[in-house]
């Protein structure tokens, strides 16, 4: 049995073949995951993808149907929630309404009979700048303050692993951005391992060292936010992490460095071998809207540039620093292009026939062509 211990630097977490079945569906399917000690790890996915269930299994609030959970190398799969050195910041904060803020924060310390509970609790309240409300009840605080109390109540225990279940979900945008910065700072200060569950891709990318994108109970892709954004492997990731244009095609020929993909309409696109997750058969070519250029009329193709012609501009929205164009390419579907307004105002107008182009090395090759349908109704 794992013993509760005060941790100073966080502990590594490993999930081995974790599976969770509920009557009628599988919420988490054979999940393998390692979170390094001291890391800020984000589990990102749409609602119903199994990310909260995964978190609840790690906390011990849900029993996995199969698989193992190791914390610092110790198997805690069968350890009761109250014996795990893991604390959670709940989405609804779940503060104890009948206790003062101070007693809320000291709760975990008192259960473990920590001798200097009072000082530690006050220090934690100081950390989140709420020492002045120690005597109040949760109902007397604002949402942002309650959120910080929930955070203080968890980190005061110096858990081996801190779980955050969409803790910023209920805050308004401005407060949310502030709390993101604060959370990141606190994580750096206390040096704990953070596992942050969220459906907000921007939040995951700005805060996490490593992001795992989850879909339908499994992890689609995992890595540093920058590399995931630059090089998504599946259409789901390309679409969920930022915006993408994806062209479905068939690999027609390949050499050591480049794959050629034939797409409907007789156009051939190139994608570097190193940037493709599939090299033959069905390959989709994707590119981020901000990496594309828009040109009036037709443009001659070049070897280092992909060009698609014959689109009609269906929407132009001017946002100040940039303009966003929506272009209809018939069978290829709709293409979105962001262009910075470096020179003058938008260069093309609504209804113009245009071409789009991008450097071959900016694109990426995907092994599937369409994001799996996200079923909102299957949310837990």
């Amino acid at each position, binding site marked *: 049995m794992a013993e509760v211990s005060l941790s100073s630097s966080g502990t590594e977490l490993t999930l081995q073949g974790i599976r969770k079945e509920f009557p009628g569906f599988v919420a988490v399917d054979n999940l393998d995951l390692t979170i390094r000690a001291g890391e800020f790890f984000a589990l990102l996915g749409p609602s119903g993808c199994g990310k909260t269930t995964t978190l609840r299994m790690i906390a011990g*609030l849900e029993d996995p149907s199969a698989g193992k959970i190791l914390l610092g190398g110790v198997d805690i799969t069968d350890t009761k*929630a*109250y014996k795990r050195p893991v604390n959670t910041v*709940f989405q609804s904060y*779940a503060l*104890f309404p009948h206790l003062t803020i101070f007693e809320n924060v000291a*709760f*975990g310390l008192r*259960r473990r009979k920590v001798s200097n509970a009072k000082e530690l609790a006050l220090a934690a309240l100081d950390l989140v700048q709420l020492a002045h409300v120690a005597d109040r009840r949760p109902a007397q605080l604002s949402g942002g303050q309650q959120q910080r109390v929930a955070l203080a109540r968890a980190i005061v225990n110096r858990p081996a692993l801190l779980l955050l279940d969409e803790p910023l979900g209920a805050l308004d945008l401005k407060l949310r951005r502030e709390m993101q910065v604060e959370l990141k700072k606190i994580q750096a200060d206390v040096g704990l391992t953070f596992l942050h569950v969220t459906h907000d891709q921007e939040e995951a990318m700005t805060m996490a060292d490593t992001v795992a994108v989850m879909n339908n109970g499994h992890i689609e892709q995992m890595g540093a936010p920058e590399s995931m954004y630059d090089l998504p492997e599946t259409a789901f990731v390309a679409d969920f992490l930022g915006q993408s244009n994806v062209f479905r095609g068939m690999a027609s020929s390949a050499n050591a460095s480049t794959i050629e993909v034939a797409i409907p309409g007789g156009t051939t696109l190139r994608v570097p071998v190193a940037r493709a997750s599939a090299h033959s058969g069905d390959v989709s070519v994707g590119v981020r809207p901000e990496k594309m250029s828009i040109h009036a009329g037709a443009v001659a193709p070049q070897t280092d540039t992909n060009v698609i012609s014959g689109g009609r501009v269906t929407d132009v929205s001017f946002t100040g620093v940039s303009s966003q164009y929506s272009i209809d390419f018939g069978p290829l579907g709709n293409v979105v292009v962001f262009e910075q307004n470096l020179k003058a105002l938008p260069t093309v107008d609504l209804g113009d026939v245009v071409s789009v182009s991008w450097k071959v090395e900016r694109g990426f090759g995907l092994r599937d062509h369409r994001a799996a349908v996200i079923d909102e109704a299957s949310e837990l």
Partner: protein
Amino acid sequence: MKGSIFGRALLPIYTILALLFLLIPIVYTFIFSFNDAFKTNIQWQGFTWHNWTNVCDAQGVCEAFGNSIIVGVVATLAATALGTALAIALVRYKFRGRNIVSLLIFLPMATPEVVLGAGLAAQFFSLGTPKGMLTVIIAHTLFCLSFVVVTVKARVASLDASIEEAGRDLYASPGQVFWRITFPLLIPGIAAAALLSFALSFDDFIITYFNSGSMQTFPTFIYISAVRGVPPEANVIASAVFVLAIVGVTISQVVSSVRRRRLAASR
């Protein structure tokens, strides 16, 4: 013009009449607790404090009242403890037969008291249990249980389950989660259920009458003594209970409104 005056006066008149209708028996009981009665307490004989200062003079009144209190307290404790556990189980846990239990809980409330009382009396008879304090307590616990479950269930359902999960997450054992989190948060519901139970038990006549044997509670005492005239001491006890209840309700209302105002002010 005349019609409209009549129309305007209709509601107040109706309200006053309705209040009078409700209050007259209570006021009558209260006034006649000061009656200097001898043998019967039907005609006004003159004012006296004697009944209030020597309540236990009338034979059996205080004993019956004491029995009522004992039955009420014990039945309330038993029904509240059992009912709270049942209510938590019905809301928080999924088990075989949960829906049937939820439904059966309503049965004692829906069954006519005469049937319940007679049925219980027959059961006690066939079990050979002598009628008395114990059988009355069992019977009262039974019908109070339904009311406790219904009242506490509503409170449990309104409790965010993640608050208890937070307790488990913060190193509280199942026992500590219950006593430090669940129970304190359920207290308003449990207190309401206990008050309701006590009032129902204290007030009950029919079921008690079937199962009390020679023991008397306050209601059965009054019923029996009504044949030869209720002693004014019974009026004293009834009035005192009424006054205490009114004072209790008033205090709790004032306290909660003060607390609400303070909470609003500190926000």
